[in-house]
């Protein structure tokens, strides 16, 4: 019995949902069935949203636990930093809940979880700049990566380097000063060889997805369950 609820029921859930979502998407019985399926589909995606939301809250508990453990174990080297994380996490949630309270207690103020003023301040002055900075730190990384990636070790690397140089020159105005043809050559590379190169990868990724779906359906892909019972 225990194996049934531990192992088989989750797998049955997976197979049933996959079969239902795929079958009803492709098959057409009547307009009513299609409409009913549309509603069920919407409900199912709401289910996923609800589950993800709970998962995020459980994840928050996990983050708290992780940092409390670190404060206990690693002492002063780590403690101030973990304390900052915990403090900001709790502050954000508290302000969010305050906004939530106001959205019911005083709806005319127009304050919701995400528009609560202090919450918004933290978002715009801590989260947003850090997020944008992490995104743009890629400019440094792409520079040092290209420095290493375009070393001519073999003929293939030479081809890679030539392509990259043409594209880089075509993208900039300096390239046009050196030779006006770089721009159209760049456009050609991006539309013909580049498209052609990614097409087999796209097809392959699609096939891989289908086969993985098959493995999930036939209960052969069980890594997602964690331990093997």
């Amino acid at each position, binding site marked *: 019995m225990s194996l049934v609820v531990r192992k088989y029921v989750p797998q049955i859930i997976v197979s049933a949902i996959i079969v239902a979502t795929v079958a009803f998407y492709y098959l*057409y019985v009547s307009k009513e069935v299609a409409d009913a399926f549309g509603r069920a589909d919407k409900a199912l995606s709401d289910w996923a949203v609800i589950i993800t939301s709970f998962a995020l809250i459980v*994840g928050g508990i996990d983050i708290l636990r992780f940092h409390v453990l670190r404060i206990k174990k690693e002492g002063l080297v780590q403690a101030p930093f973990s304390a900052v994380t915990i403090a900001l996490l709790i502050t954000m949630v508290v302000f969010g809940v305050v906004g939530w309270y106001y959205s019911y207690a005083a709806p005319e103020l127009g304050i919701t979880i995400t528009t609560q003023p202090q919450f918004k301040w933290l978002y715009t002055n801590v989260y947003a700049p850090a997020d944008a900075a992490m995104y743009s730190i890629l400019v440094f990384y792409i520079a040092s990566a290209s420095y290493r990636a375009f070393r001519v070790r073999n003929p293939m690397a030479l081809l890679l380097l030539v392509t990259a140089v043409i594209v880089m020159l075509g993208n900039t105005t300096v390239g046009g000063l050196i030779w006006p043809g770089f721009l159209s050559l760049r456009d050609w590379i991006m539309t013909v060889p580049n498209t052609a190169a990614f097409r087999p*990868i796209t097809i392959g990724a699609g096939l891989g*997805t289908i086969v993985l779906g*098959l493995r999930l359906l036939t209960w052969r*892909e069980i890594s*997602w369950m964690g331990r093997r019972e």
Partner: protein
Amino acid sequence: MKTPRSIVAAIALLVLILVISAIAWSLRIQLYTTRAPFSAFLILIVLLVAGYVFMEQAKLGKSFPVRRIPAFEAIEEAIARSVEMGRPVHMTFGFGTISSSMAPQYVAGLGVLAHVARLCGRYGAKLIATLGVPEAIATTEEIVREGYYSAGRPELFNPAYNVRYLTDQQFAYASAVQATIVRENVGANIVVGPFYAESLIFMEAGNMVGAFQIAGTARETQIPFFVLVADYSLIGEEIFAAGALASGDKETLVSIRGQDLGKLISIALVVLGIIMLLGGFKLVDSLNWVWKFG
């Protein structure tokens, strides 16, 4: 040799679908959606049935050679090397979520994690799995635990150290992962899953500490960064094949023959379509045909 019933049933199902479709077509009954071309459904069904038949055949002991996937084989070397150097192994799966169409790639990443965890158990390596998808925390902990326990090294398992859920926000996750890679001074950096712009951040962080890097994703726009920067890379569908290889189970492995069949079908359709163009017949129209009459 007697053909097992399951194979007969699968092929019968395929034939049944084809026969019903043909009848519906001749009677002009609206049987399939107008949202997608019929050929898409047909390809899906053929691949599912064929993959299933391959797997059932494998049960009978039928085997075949598989091309080497160097990146997959390199995982063991990477782990052995980091144990030698006394450095931990890091693995992460990217920012794509489980409840979107990125799920298959995520599952493939978890499959590779199962392999990595087993090897870490065998070699006694410390494994740090970082993740940005909250649904997968429990699963990841279980996989790592399984890896250490099955190798008889339960003392190495410490969920708070081995599995670190950082946050689900893309760049906060990325900032914490790059810090983890550098501060823990990881010896091997294995990243497989649905990656977005964070891919290069992880690669460069790994490079800063001179880690052995194995990377794979099926997200086209990030593949170049992995191929050009990592020591070994799994390109596109290779991550799904790696998941099958990682299972260590022959019958599961056979399923990748379904991928090959799909590629051969694609090649055949392209060649056929081009030849037919000579005769003035447009195969494209048939492939794009939507089940709709009048």
